[in-house]
């Protein structure tokens, strides 16, 4: 029963609430969003069941009279039941997690555009190596814009030049750490045009909370125009 609730949650376009989460703007995000809805629904269902049991025993078994209650200490079938059921639930959850993880971490062989993102204290540098375009934070607090096409896969190569940062776009439901000495690679496909706020989400020192940026998704056609008009430019 619990698993079927999860399965419903994982089917696309379901009627479940978002539980506060933002609606995702990437296909990878959709997969995580469905997993989130399913897990949260299942979690709440289990929660309500157990909270119910606790409150029931609190109200039902409050002290009445002075008879000595039953002193039973073991009930093996019951104990086995409540060991096996949780195991089944987590196996189910693990299965759906692996499914979603494969979608999210999938790296395609030929992305439409590659961007090298360099995080530094306290800003970002977006470099399109093929087109020789660079966009970076110039003065503290300025917010550079990462321009990407929709629909097609975008490759991000994420590096850091000083301490550990994290590339986080809430609308993508995704973040990845930028670690000095490590090149992290991930792909995403934006689903619709729009401008999304991005944040550094790994504490990186004094101006950590001012390390913001935008991701602007535009149609592939518009993106081509943008690339052509910015070719070779290093803009702020």
């Amino acid at each position, binding site marked *: 029963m619990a698993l079927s609730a999860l399965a419903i949650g994982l089917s696309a376009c379901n009627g479940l609430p978002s539980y506060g989460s933002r609606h995702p703007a990437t296909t990878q995000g959709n997969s995580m969003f469905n997993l989130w809805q399913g897990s949260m629904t299942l979690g709440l269902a289990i929660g309500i069941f157990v909270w119910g049991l606790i409150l029931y025993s*609190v109200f039902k078994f409050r002290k009445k009279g002075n008879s000595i209650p039953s002193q039973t200490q073991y009930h093996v079938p019951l104990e086995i039941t409540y060991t096996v059921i949780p195991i089944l639930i987590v196996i189910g959850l693990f299965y759906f997690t692996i499914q979603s993880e494969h979608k999210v971490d999938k790296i395609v062989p030929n992305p439409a555009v590659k961007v090298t993102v360099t995080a530094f204290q306290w800003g970002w540098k977006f470099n399109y190596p093929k087109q020789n375009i660079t966009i970076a934070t110039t003065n503290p607090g300025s917010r550079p814009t990462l321009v990407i096409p929709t629909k097609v896969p975008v490759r991000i190569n994420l590096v850091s030049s000083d301490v550990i940062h994290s590339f986080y776009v809430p609308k993508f439901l995704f973040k990845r750490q930028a670690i000095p000495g490590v090149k992290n690679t991930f792909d995403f496909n934006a689903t619709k045009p729009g401008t999304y706020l991005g944040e550094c989400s790994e504490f990186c020192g004094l101006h950590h909370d001012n390390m913001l940026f935008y991701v602007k998704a535009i149609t592939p056609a518009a993106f081509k125009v943008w690339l052509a008009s910015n070719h070779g430019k290093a803009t702020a």
Partner: protein
Amino acid sequence: MTVTEERSTIGSHEPSHHEGPTGLLKWLTSTDHKVIGLSYIVTSLILFAISGVLAELIRTQLLFPDNHFVSQHFYNELFTMHGSIMMYLFVGPFAFGLGNYIVPLQIGAPDMSFPRLNALSYWLYLFGSIITVSGFFTAGGAADFGWYAYAPLSNSPFSPGMGENLWYVGIGIAGLGTILTAVNFVATVYTLRAPGMTMWRMPIFTWNMFVTSILALLVFPVLTAAFALNLADRVLGAHVFTVSGGGIPVMYQHLFWFFGHPEVYIAALPYFGIVTEILPVFSRRPVFGYKGLVLATLAIAGLSMGVWAHHMFTTGVVLLPFFSALSYLIAVPTGIKFFNWIGTMWGGQLTFEPPMLFAIGFLLVFLWGGITGVMLASPPLDFGTNATYFVVSHFHYVLIATTVFAGFGGVYYWYPKMTGRFLHHGLGKAQFWILFIGMNVTFLPQDILGSMGMPRRYAHYYPGQHFTLLNQISTVGAYIISISMILFIINFWVSWKKPILSGPDPWLGHTLEWATTSPPPPKNFTSLPPIYSDSPLWDFRLKEMKEKGEGLPR
């Protein structure tokens, strides 16, 4: 004078009164586990209060968008020191303090195995804490790189300053104290049990302190090593974690979380133990599924050693399925514990004195922490919620349930044993309800904030992000929590000024600590009941009640 302790049968000798030092000198020289336990408890509660004030300052800063209540730099110090004091200097030592007082009593021992070592552990903890907190009084302020001090941010080019150095040294010293205490607990449990108290008859609290000690022995040396390496980078010019010198920053995360995740269970298992002591006593039933409960504790401890990198899912360099699977599996023994706790209450005769209220509060609050925790075991969900307020809310639900609800439950439960007095019931109940409301008002909004994408450790947010209202509700909740803590201080003061005497066994306890006077005499026992189960005193009382044929006393 060294006393060779003789074990005695019922009523064979009078409690002896030794002439000894009094006042400050008594405190400085005492090797009595009860004095040391109380010192631990009082010191850790003072640090808890300091850390609580820091938390209120953090919440006040977040009361308005783009607020300038404190400077950015000071805000970073605030959350770093709040986390550091709570995680390193409060949750563990508070549990070890209660354990120090209670474990020897529960197993019928006259003291801990190594009383002088026990005293040394306490002094190391006290001095370490003073040094850590003293960072606030240095020119550059206290440490400001977050409580887990990721390299290379924590290295001197990025975080220079004396406060940071003191942080490393202070926590290192306190950690050494924890290792020594853990050795002491294992030795005590192995060698000082009363006759008939086999391992499988030890009260659950003692079991959990024992398992916690093994965990501490496994992981605190790793923390000390990680800190020593980091300190070498900082002050000796080493390059263990700096890329330019050929070091590997990710290795620090591995070392740290290899300590850091079991530390969460070091902060949880003793408190599970407290709850498992309170629930049976106030249900008038033995613990349901005692053996399963012990095995679940061992399973949790074991699994907790294999899940460290679930804190590193977003690094992109760890094996996701391995850590995800083991993290999910921890839900199973934790679930078993829940059903055992409910089974203990099931069919009982429940009364709701403050310890019981706090224990039930623990169950209700911890469940939500557990559910959000299971969600975070999934890497794809963690990608969205890691390092946001969702995680902040999750671990506050877990840690407040354990250390605050179960911890205060333990204080209310054992305070009569430690002092011979009750804490005021009415004030205790008021404290519980205010805490319960304040806790949920503070941290449920943070769940939603995190789901919306508010990152943790941000001193500012902006009006357009729609974070304002939820943050304000959360801050109000934090103020409500502080009211409940003030009530506790008042309660303490009331019990000091107008004592309500409790007698040796006010709750009809199940375990041996209630078989001696309150507070217990030096070397603890003048007599012991026979031990035939994990609740020897309750067996004794049941027999008495059945013989009298009157049922439970009123």
